[in-house]
């Protein structure tokens, strides 16, 4: 179980972080558009399409990564007060009832949706501009993101089971923290 958790964390982390670098590409791509549009009076036809494709891919591919690092927002004002075992028990039930159905729908319906997009002669292109930017690969992101969430969800279920047995949470290996969290941690080390 531990090995599966580690595998899922790594997998989600790999995809989430790799696609995260799209933000740098996006920064340069959009800056390039600003340059050619406002200084050279030659706007590109693709910037609109490319910007939402990068944004959409970035956040969808980051979904599982965010889940593995506990980054999806929860109303945890009561939850945080519970002992770890209670948290794990509640989470376990809720994962089964309220996580997998939605994610399975994402995978299967996403598959249908993307497959149709691939099936058009030459593949579906974006309707937003005449540049003909392909979007069938972008629609496939729905399926890949769904599969990653599915695997990560199973890992979270394993976490719950382990926590029920052991009484404490198995945290993911931390790779990066919000500035505030980092500072908080440094301070805690200094003080204690």
């Amino acid at each position, binding site marked *: 179980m531990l090995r599966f958790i580690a595998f899922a964390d790594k997998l989600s982390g790999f995809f*989430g972080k790799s696609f995260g670098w799209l*933000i740098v590409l996006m920064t340069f791509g*959009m*800056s390039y558009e600003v340059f050619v549009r406002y200084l050279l009076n030659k706007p590109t036809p693709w910037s609109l399409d490319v910007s939402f494709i990068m944004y959409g891919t*970035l956040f969808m591919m980051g979904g599982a990564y965010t889940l593995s690092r506990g980054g*999806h*927002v929860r109303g945890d004002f009561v939850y945080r007060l519970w002992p770890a075992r209670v948290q794990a028990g509640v989470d376990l039930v809720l994962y089964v009832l309220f996580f997998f159905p939605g994610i399975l729908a*994402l995978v299967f319906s996403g598959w249908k949706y993307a497959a149709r997009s691939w099936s058009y002669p030459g593949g579906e292109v974006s309707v937003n501009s005449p540049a003909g930017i392909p979007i069938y690969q972008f629609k496939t992101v729905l399926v890949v993101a769904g599969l990653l969430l599915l695997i990560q969800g199973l890992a979270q279920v394993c976490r719950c089971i382990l926590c029920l047995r052991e009484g404490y949470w198995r945290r993911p290996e931390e790779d990066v923290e919000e*500035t505030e969290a980092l*500072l908080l941690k440094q301070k805690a080390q200094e003080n204690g």
Partner: protein
Amino acid sequence: MTDPQVALLMLGIFILLVFLGFPIAFTLMALGIGFGYYAYFDAGRMWRAFNRLGEDADWWTTNTTWFEGFLNNRIFDLFINQTYTVMSNEVLTAVPLFLFMGYIVERANIVDRLFTTLNIASKNVPGSMGVAALITCALFATATGIVGAVVTLMGLLALPAMLKARYSTSFASGIICAGGTLGILIPPSIMLIVYAAASGVSIVRLYAGALLPGLVLVGLYILYVVGRAILQPSVAPRPTDEEVPDVPFGRLAVMIATSFLPLALLIFSVLGSILFGLATPTEAASIGALGGMLLAVAYRAMTFQRLRESVYLTVRTTAMVCFLFVGSYTFSAVFSYLGGEQLISEFVGGLNLTPLQFLIMAQIIIFLLGWPLEWSEIIIIFVPIFLPLLPMFGVDPLFFGILVALNLQTSFLTPPMAMSAYYLKGIAPPQVQLPQIFAGVMPFLFMVFVAMALVYIFPQTVFYLPELFYGR
């Protein structure tokens, strides 16, 4: 049970699940799909293929076709369609870019330069360090759209300085908490982009509309700090020359030029180009991110490690916000399909409220939601419940959005989910206690309500700039 009652049940279960602490995006998704399955259940349509099977169909075909009927519910197509709509939402493309810009800029050692300079420059003002801290926060707020880092950075920098200058603990920590929260109100605020995506109000008009109310709030904060320092000098004594050195004017000018001007240039190129319609918010955000990187390089604060951190944090926060949209798009489509929206409209319509009563009621609800919940959940999930009611009371959604943005300042400051206070507590010296922080925050909460009242009495604070820039 009628369909609208089912919709209310759906909302009720959702609120219960929020209390149980399950990640909200997935809760919304599952409830949307579950109740959508009920809403779109249509046996004739779902088992059409099964019903058309001839007598000669074999056992396997008969059973698989029958089973496929269960999956043939339109909710699945709706769900994917809504998800794709979020993925291709052009307004939200600015979210990761502004987040990235914020993460880069907060790692660029800007805050300490700015605070040091302003501290010296404002030395002769009553409550000078508090004023310097607030102005630092306000300036920084125009370069970042998020909260958190500012509170902690200022908490590490300004709080010890103020405590050393014998400022009252609760007064000083109130200043930092309130000032550090401004980033989410003053453009380029992520919260306003999210409100734009949720309400359909133009993001540039929201940015223009938020600018003056943001300044009003900063002004009220400063007024309070200066006023309190005059009336009760013991909470904010004048710093000694040792604590804040006197600096000759020439050197001060250089300090301002190196700390304030580059940041001001960055802010102006981002906000200016958005407000004057020279570039789209997405384009401006990319320029801001690029400029932030250059600034960080210039301040020798740019390392690969920091860039990587910024990238990863951008992914996580973007995914957090956008998955909420994925969940809420499906949830709210089903909620209104079942007639929930209609039911709420009729209920509120039947209360015979005046527009003012309605506004007060809505803002009180949002204020109360801000205790247990965070701004993202409130804007993406609860505010859209109010939006269809606005025409009934003749309230402009732009105006409403600014009031909400002001109001949600409080969600960072009020327990039990007072994120700003917790961040500060985490990095403050041990003698700073949470009750002291909350006591210090109270007057600032009051100022938020004063600002809301002022904005209500003088709606031109909201409408003046949008009308000036966009002519209506």
